[in-house]
């Protein structure tokens, strides 16, 4: 493999991480969803590039799935939900964004550090790919921890999923069946999310998780 393709892959993965940071930074719901779309789009590009580099046609399918579902349909659906629930132009107050960003940077450093000793026999492309995928996953988790609105938690979760997909794409010759079924299950998960958002809404008239916290069992 020649350097250029390697660099491109690197750049794409890196930009995925960057988008994750953007998501963490973005506090306005609708905007957040847009960023999510971008996130997925970058992922799709990365996967496609991997397909090209690895000359693995089935990866194109994955890329397509990602492009269609994750970057188009799901953000759109979420956008609809947000509108239906009247949450548009909702602004979350994330406590001390700066610190969160700093933690994010720390996480990226950690994931690189952890991946470092991975022996070179796994080719460098995979290596960096995995490292960045790991940081995307961690960032997604970090975002879930910092957000309290159901929708943005879902968005964070989806970005986490994207990280995993990136890793999957980096893995050569990952069987298609598995890819498909994984994608499928993610879809189901998303359906469940939708159902729940509405149920929660119907019970609690909000999707702010604070409302739920009041009803934790065993209080009385």
């Amino acid at each position, binding site marked *: 493999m020649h350097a250029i393709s390697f660099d491109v892959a690197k750049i794409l993965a890196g930009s995925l991480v960057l988008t994750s940071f953007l998501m963490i930074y973005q506090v306005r719901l609708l905007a957040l969803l847009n960023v999510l779309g971008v996130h997925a789009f970058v992922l799709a590009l990365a996967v496609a590039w991997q397909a090209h580099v690895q000359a693995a046609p089935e990866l194109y399918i994955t890329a397509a799935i990602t492009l269609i579902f994750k970057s188009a349909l799901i953000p759109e659906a979420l956008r609809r939900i947000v509108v239906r629930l009247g949450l548009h132009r909702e602004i979350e107050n994330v406590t001390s964004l700066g610190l969160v960003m700093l933690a994010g940077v720390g996480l990226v450093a950690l994931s690189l*550090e952890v991946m470092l000793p991975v022996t070179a026999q796994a080719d460098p492309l995979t290596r960096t790919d995995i490292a960045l995928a790991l940081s995307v996953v961690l960032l997604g988790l970090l975002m*879930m*921890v910092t957000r309290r609105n159901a929708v943005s938690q879902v968005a964070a979760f989806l970005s986490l999923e994207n990280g995993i997909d990136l890793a999957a794409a980096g893995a050569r010759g990952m069987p298609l069946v598995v890819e498909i079924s994984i994608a499928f299950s993610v879809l189901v998960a998303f359906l469940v999310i939708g159902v729940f958002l509405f149920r929660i809404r119907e019970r609690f008239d909000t999707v702010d*998780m604070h409302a739920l*916290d009041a009803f934790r069992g065993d*209080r009385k």
Partner: protein
Amino acid sequence: MIATLFGILAFLVLGLIGVFRGRDANGIVYGASLGISAALGIVGLRALFGAAPATLVLPLGLPWIGAHFRLDALAGFFLLVVNLGGVGASLYGIGHGRHERDAARVLAFYPWFLATLNLVVVADDAFTFLFAWELMSVVSWALVLAHHRDPANIRAGFVYLVMASLSGLVLLLVFGLLAGANGGYAFTLMRAARPTPGIAGVAFVLALLGTGAKAGLMPLHAWLPLAHPAAPSHVSALMSGVMTKVAIYAFVRIAFDVLGDLSQWSAVVVLALGGATAGLGILHALMESDLKRLLAYSTVENVGIIFIGLGLAMAFRASGFAAGAALALTAALFHVFNHAIYKSLLFFGAGAVLSATGERDMERLGGLIHRLPQTSFAMLIGCAAIAALPPLNGFVSEWLTFQAILLRPALPQWGLKLMIPADGALLALTAALTGACFVKLFGIAFLGRPRSDAARDAHEVDRFSRAAMLGAALLCLLLGLLPGVLVDALAPVARELLGVRLAEQMALPWLSLIPIAAVRSSYNGLLVFLFIVLATSLTILAIHRFASRAIRRAPAWDCGFPDTSPITQYTGASFAQPIRRVFAASLLGARETVFMPPPGDMAPARIEKTLSDPLWEALYAPLGVWIAWLADRLNHLQFLTIRRYLAFVFVALVALLLALALWQ
């Protein structure tokens, strides 16, 4: 061996009958238990004098170990003790059980309890042993909760079960240590694998903890005075008279048989704990006014005495003085046997009083000797026996223990040099206090004038209960007259565990008891008894024959101004007051506050006594507080937000990754 297991099986079946037939199975269950216990007792007797220990392995429990059973002399002796108690309790139960409110609860678990007691004794591998051990605790827990409407009983049961499981788990550690990493759980293997002194020491301490917690050794006795009184009286008798003995069996089995040689320090520990238990136990008993609680505390005391005997045996064995060890061990086991009998008798009596008056508090009793003549007579014998008065059996075992203390081989170890005489003094003190304690019990509850209507019109109990009590009383007397029988019966045990035995006793002239040598010490209960009987009868005869026999009934003299109200009598508390002031003030923090109204004020003067259990306050109470505190702190984790929980996952992940990064 097979017979034993069949007996145990029969008990289990009997329990099922109890479950399904309920109250109308009363006669069947107790009657059958009586029969089975008798049969098992005979089995034990035969094992005691049998040549080789019978062994058996069944494909139960953990298959690669199997369930090992072994019936050697030691097991035989304790089988005898257990089933002697079983016979008495069952006989008593035939009558007493009729008064039971939820008969089914007792009838179901009673035979199972007997079964587990027997099973512990014959078990020969760690798994079977602990299985029976824990089962014994669970079943007796259910029996303690037979009268479950009283919240105090529920608490008692709770404390009991926790302590019992503690003992089980600690013993589990012991066996884990002895069995090694690849699990040689059969006792034979443990005997074969001689542990290093260090391991043996740890195992011994844990074993003392585990068995002591079940036997009621201080400071692990706290559950005993709660649990034993809570159960129905014949079950209390079994728990106090037999179950504690099974715990002592476990100690002997581990310390003398499985562990092999131990250092002299272990003996010092046992002696110290035994002495403290005996002294404090009887002091607690003296302070009690609840009949059954008093008896329970006296059980603690007797356990202490037994442990003193065992400690002496260990000390002598450790310093290579086998004959002395044999004497001490014999004394201890003799006391085991005695206590099994008279403690059962006393609990039967307490149960009789309870069913006759509905009262357990001696401050509301009195004058029962007129209403329950036979019960009172049996109780009198029991009290005299437990107070170690000649010519009854209690005296013999304490006498033997003293002889053991006086043996005093050349002890190289200064801990023993100090501890043995100290235990001698404690033993003497305990004996004296026991006398006071049981004068109090009998004098307040059975003599004097009735302090409540319930006591005034009590009625003698049914004939089965009386038979059980009088039988036990007779046994107390016979053992006192012919102690040689039991001493000889214990010889095989001593030979098995120590390699030597005491001299044959029944062959001696006049059937007297000479443990070591005639010039050293001898005692002949038979002659003492004869002399007393002769002297008494001769005197009575002479006086009635040659002087007057006339008698006139009149009001009590009481220095000229008798007060007919029974409250002018001494109560149990006031009887114990001098001793409370002398001993309990420092040891049990006993305090008296007198409220004297000012002159002119018509209010009555009051005296209030407060008593505290330093051990409980030092050990158990803080533990509870600590757990509660921890639980409250941690409980907040139940009510966090989802984000927090996510944060936990997140932190756990990051932490592990960091660890990984650092590890590489």
